[in-house]
């Protein structure tokens, strides 16, 4: 039977050395960039903070998945750029009338497209999505908070938007099964109903 090893007790000299090291002052090397983390997080949160935006962008992914290739990939390529163009217009102060109504309408029509499994020609689908993207981007552009880090805010904003599309596409992949097709149509109907609610609020 082996004897248990004796526990080594910390020496007082060691404790003093540890204390001295712990209390020694060193210059802070932290690379603090005020507002940058806030900028990314604010940008990331912005597209997902409004249900009307979320429903419309997820619907774009759902519809793309229903339409299949190449629409499934064309829409996520086109939407961020057109939406950013809308954001650009909002940032520089170019006015756009009826933004809230258009955003609500986008939920209604995109939801309807998913509910009916509409299959318009690809340019028409891209144009419909693109027009609504401008309004969504414009709303975000005019709502940007002052003092944020522009680049990190923009990165967070675009990444969140892209993730919403990808989420929609991922959910839309259930389209390959019969039950999935029904589920997508039900989801589209729910988006339309929610969009009508937003429209009522925007018009009132």
């Amino acid at each position, binding site marked *: 039977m082996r004897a248990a090893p004796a526990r080594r007790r910390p020496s007082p000299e060691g404790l003093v050395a540890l204390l001295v090291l712990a209390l020694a002052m060193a210059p802070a090397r932290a690379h603090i960039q005020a507002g940058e983390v806030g900028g990314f997080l604010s940008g990331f949160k912005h597209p997902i903070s409004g249900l009307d935006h979320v429903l419309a962008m997820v619907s774009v992914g759902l519809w793309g998945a229903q339409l299949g290739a190449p629409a499934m990939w064309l829409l996520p390529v086109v939407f*961020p750029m057109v*939406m950013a163009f809308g*954001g650009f217009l909002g940032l520089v102060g170019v006015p756009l009338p009826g933004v809230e109504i258009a955003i609500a309408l986008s939920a209604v029509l995109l939801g309807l497209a998913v509910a009916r499994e509409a299959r318009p020609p690809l340019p028409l689908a891209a144009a419909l999505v693109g027009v609504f993207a401008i309004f969504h981007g414009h709303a975000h552009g005019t709502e940007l908070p002052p003092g944020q880090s522009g680049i990190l*805010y923009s990165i967070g904003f675009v990444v969140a938007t892209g993730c919403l599309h990808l989420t929609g596409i991922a959910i839309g992949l259930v389209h390959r099964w019969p039950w999935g097709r029904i589920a997508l149509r039900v989801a589209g109907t729910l988006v339309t109903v929610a969009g009508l609610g937003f429209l009522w609020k925007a018009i009132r």
Partner: protein
Amino acid sequence: MRTRAAGAGTLALLASLLVPVRAEAHLVTTGLGPVYDGIGHLLLTPEDLVPIVALALYAGLRGARAGRLALFILPVAWIAGGLLGLGLGHATSVPVPALSFILFGLLVAADAKLPDGAVAALAGVLGLVHGFLNGPALAGAGPGALGLLGIAAVAFVLVAPASALVVSLKAPAARIAVRVAGSWVAAIGLLLLGWAFRTRGIGPALPGILVG
């Protein structure tokens, strides 16, 4: 009359873009020496980092030869531009990062079929311009010319695997994923451009200029 007003407005816009401003580049002090400061600068500066990655993706989409050209030309051009910037550099209010994001993002998103020579030229221009703009920041309290070595080394290390990865992609869906990334970069660039206009107070004047 409207044309003349639009021309004057455009001229005012260009003039306001060319007004020199204080350099806002944030230099990183790692405490490990100027080369590491340069490395830290590039890794923590998305304005420089993202266009490099976008160039690597684009060169990869264009094939192995274009990737190799970009790999070697970009760091050399960055050092050349940086040395020029160290000597003569001054900050500019032209939103160069935004324009780089838009240009390289669009090239990736569109999978534009440019010849290898054009890809090499684009790598050279990117390195020269961004390196030149690094100059004022490096010249002051920054790491100086040695910092450029760190920046160029990271650029090389970033472009090599990124472009090689894209060259190896054969599945159409994977290449489309790269193009989606390009569209995100272009979208970020558009927002940056709007941000630059708004920050400089050009925003409120722009609608009138656009409308004429």
